[in-house]
């Protein structure tokens, strides 16, 4: 990287505070943003942005430095996701989904030398991870699997009908849920690292959607084989509770916060320009902007609160398995997905027709389309259902 164009960051060693955020900001502004229109229009993978992220070693950002990564924190990743999503929500979402998988691998591979080695490979080669947790026929319940791992000596075999694998064909490996064995219960799941060399993907569903079009969340029939050691040692129930659920809700909400923040910034810029044209007169959208900014602050505070709780309990499995924690993380997701639609919609009303247009510098039409994905790609109604069940026994939450 040319230092005249941006700050330099020491890679693979120790991370300078703030430098990661600056590098991500530059990639968002100079690469992800300019490509975002075409990515959305063509519903294509944001290749340029991911290439730029790889060139700055950012796919291994969460990996500890002794395994070749940058040793960044979940808080750093939340900031990065928000920054990327301000310019290209699909890029932000892909980066978030990748880091969620990386975090699961880091935290649940401790006594597995082969998986630890894979993490060093991931850092060295900047490998991209995807996820296949949903399955056709289980009604969207990620904690239930029909497919199962079959072990043949030191090799695992796995076949899964996955209605959605975001950026599946662009990923170097996919973390796949499955029942532990052919005779295991539907909830007795494991998480399996399926690398590209042992995995085939037969397309079964396209991704031509309202928003998050660049996430390329297509459906596939997945067939994989690999070393038995690529079956993560912890149960998926544990991985989900301690890592995947909190990390997902935090990083997804960070992505939506990025969308909302940029929409509000556009509304602000629009109102500033309007009030300069007619000084002394309050533009009609000013009150709505105040409402949007208030909601944005609520959204940001909700994310910070969850982030803080996760950081302080991250190494306490007992606290992370508490029902109250799951409820609060679910509430983060529900609130974030609701608020992003509310805020972007408010911003569009502030801006008016210039926000509704696709060809205006104040356009927030893509923001609005992306925002609806927050409550639909992972159904808010399903999470409300889970919380409603937990509240039958929860006392304080």
């Amino acid at each position: 990287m040319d230092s005249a164009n941006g700050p330099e960051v020491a890679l693979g060693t120790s991370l300078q505070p703030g430098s990661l955020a600056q590098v991500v900001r530059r990639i968002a502004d100079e690469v992800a943003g300019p490509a975002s229109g075409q990515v959305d229009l063509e519903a294509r993978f944001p290749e340029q942005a991911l290439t730029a992220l790889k060139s700055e070693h950012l796919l291994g950002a969460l990996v500890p430095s002794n395994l070749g990564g940058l040793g960044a924190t979940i808080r750093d990743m939340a900031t990065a996701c928000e920054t990327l999503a301000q310019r290209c929500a699909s890029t932000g979402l892909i980066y978030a989904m990748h880091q969620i998988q990386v975090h699961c691998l880091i935290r649940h591979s401790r006594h597995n030398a082969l998986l630890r080695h894979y993490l060093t490979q991931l850092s060295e080669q900047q490998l991209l991870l995807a996820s296949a947790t949903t399955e056709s026929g289980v009604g969207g319940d990620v904690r239930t699997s029909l497919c199962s791992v079959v072990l043949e000596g030191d090799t695992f075999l796995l076949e899964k009908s996955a209605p959605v694998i975001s950026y599946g064909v662009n990923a170097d490996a996919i973390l796949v849920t499955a029942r532990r064995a052919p005779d295991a219960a539907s909830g007795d799941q494991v998480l399996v690292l399926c690398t590209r060399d042992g995995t085939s993907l037969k397309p079964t569903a396209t991704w031509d959607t309202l928003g998050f079009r660049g996430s390329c969340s297509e459906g596939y029939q997945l067939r994989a084989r690999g070393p038995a050691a690529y079956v993560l040692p912890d149960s998926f129930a544990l991985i989900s509770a301690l890592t995947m659920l909190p990390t997902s809700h935090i990083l997804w909400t960070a992505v939506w916060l990025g969308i909302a923040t940029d929409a509000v910034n556009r509304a602000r810029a629009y109102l500033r320009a309007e009030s300069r044209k007619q000084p002394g007169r309050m533009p009609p959208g000013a009150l709505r902007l105040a409402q949007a900014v208030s909601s944005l602050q609520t959204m940001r505070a909700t994310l910070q609160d969850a982030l803080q709780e996760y950081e302080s309990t991250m190494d306490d499995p007992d606290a992370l398995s508490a029902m109250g924690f799951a409820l609060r993380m679910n509430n983060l997701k529900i609130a974030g997905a609701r608020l992003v639609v509310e805020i972007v919609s408010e911003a569009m009303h502030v801006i008016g027709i210039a926000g509704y247009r696709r060809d205006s510098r104040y356009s927030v039409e893509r923001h609005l389309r992306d925002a609806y994905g927050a409550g639909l790609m992972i159904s808010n109604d399903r999470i409300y259902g889970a919380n409603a069940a937990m509240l039958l026994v929860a006392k304080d939450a």
Partner: protein
Amino acid sequence: MRDEIRSIVQRHGRLGVDMSSLSDEADLYDAGLSSHASINLMLALEEHFDLEFPERLLRRRTFESVAAIQSAIEELSSARTSSP
């Protein structure tokens, strides 16, 4: 009490295996106890033993085995009898 707990787990746990094949110490989550089924299990235990699990006990460890459930219930019952 163990038999009562075992029968409630059998009825509400929706395990993939029969309770008779599990020891009191066997991990119920590994046996297929889902988070959804665990809530029904908690409600059934509360009803049957006429008690309420306080928030601090609403965590994975409390319901991970028949033995763990029994110790939680015993703790709550003794607290009840010793209080005025």
